[in-house]
């Protein structure tokens, strides 16, 4: 019975289906706000769903000489990891007792899987532009993971050294969110920029840079495989702000969480629309030197109790 319940929650609520539907709606919000910023009308609300059903109709081509298994493994890896992540985030926000030791580390690894899937798929598709995109994705992943891990370490220190996701949320419900301190604000800024890079939004859309290398790792994907990539991206757009609210802003138990969520989404979209794309070496320098030093300052402040 428990197994059936687990599978159902993984597939429908709050797993794959729920997250995908909300996430696709958020991609529409992203496109509509971008259009309004550029003084356009923008697409209608059903646009992401139409895109998805359209892609199901198309045939899925595999390039000659590409590895079939790896070509399909790339998109599926990201989809599975995001479904598991959504179940974990929701479950531990609403029943923190279900938390187990080290689940925040499991979440970090689950967040690492979509870029790894993109790298595998891009390298398997036997296209020079896809290889360039995959190598950029790899470099960018190493770039943003350093400040991200330091921020997670700081949050764990703030919560009294616990590495349980549920206990971190409980701590904030008792003692107030971590955001309301100097180090908390520093961590939030870094977290926001890391979300930007994880989603592959401008200024960190270096791996898929439409104008330079077409769509980068996605260039050879068509049909269902491309639809799975789009869905994974949409689910990340929903889950990463929730992850940030859970870790820094007191969890998602009440209705205030909706407002917090919208604020983060709008900030992400505005950063996306007001910045040019960086080069890959500039992104590496930005994350390692600027944000790296900032995150260590935040860590020092945390140790001193600020």
């Amino acid at each position, binding site marked *: 019975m428990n197994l059936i319940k687990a599978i159902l929650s993984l597939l429908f609520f709050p797993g794959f289906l729920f997250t995908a539907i909300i996430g696709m709606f958020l991609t529409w919000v992203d*496109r509509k706000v971008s*259009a309004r910023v*550029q*003084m*356009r*009308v*923008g*697409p*209608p609300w*059903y*646009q992401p*769903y*139409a*895109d*998805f*059903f*359209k*892609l*199901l*109709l*198309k*045939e*899925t*081509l595999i390039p000659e000489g590409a590895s079939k298994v790896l070509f399909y493994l790339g998109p599926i890896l990201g989809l599975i990891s995001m479904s598991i992540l959504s179940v974990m985030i929701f479950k531990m926000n609403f029943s923190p007792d279900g938390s187990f030791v080290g689940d925040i580390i499991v979440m970090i690894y689950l967040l690492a899987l979509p870029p790894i899937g993109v790298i595998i798929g891009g390298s398997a598709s036997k296209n020079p532009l896809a290889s360039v995109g995959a190598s950029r994705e790899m470099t960018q992943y190493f770039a943003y993971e350093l400040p991200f891990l330091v921020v997670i370490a700081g949050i764990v220190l703030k919560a009294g050294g616990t590495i349980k996701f549920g206990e971190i949320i409980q701590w904030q419900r008792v003692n107030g969110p971590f955001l309301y301190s100097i180090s908390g604000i520093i961590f939030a800024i870094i977290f926001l920029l890391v979300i930007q890079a994880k989603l592959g939004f401008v200024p960190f859309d270096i791996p898929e840079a*439409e*104008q330079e290398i*077409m*769509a980068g790792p*996605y*260039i*050879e*994907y*068509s*049909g269902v495989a*491309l639809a799975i990539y789009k869905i994974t991206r949409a689910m990340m757009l929903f889950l990463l702000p929730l992850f940030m609210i859970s870790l820094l802003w007191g969890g998602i138990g009440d209705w205030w969480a909706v407002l917090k969520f919208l604020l983060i989404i709008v900030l992400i979209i505005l950063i996306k629309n007001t910045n040019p794309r960086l080069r890959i070496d500039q992104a590496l320098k930005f994350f390692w030197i600027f944000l790296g030093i900032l995150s260590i300052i935040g860590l020092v402040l945390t140790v001193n109790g600020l």
Partner: protein
Amino acid sequence: MGNIKLWGLKKSPWVFHVAAASCNNCDIEILDVLTPRWDVERFGIVLVGSPRHADALLVTGVLNRKSLPRVLRVYEQTPKPCLVIGVGTCTCHCHMFEKSYNVVGPYDKHLPIDVYIPGCPPKPEAIIMGVVKALKRLG
């Protein structure tokens, strides 16, 4: 389910721009269609960078001996079902280049074209109308 998929295809045609040696006027008009003034993203039309993502190919220019194999290759790389839309008078017939030594004849000798948009170059409004007519052909 099939109806929903067809609805999706009609509501989100992603176009890939195949410039087969045109004089660039049609290409500039195509770019005009994508600017905020005409904003075809209202209809879900997005310009994509790879033929693998495309649902409609916008071909421009006169086919010649050099561009014919490239155009055919792009057409074969596009996942089906896909539409082919000829933009400009050059795609309807060979225009004033008909007697040229390296022109291999009009498009419909070589690949199936769904809609022709005449004009030298066609207006952005005409291009949008041509895409709408091509989508109506789907049923």
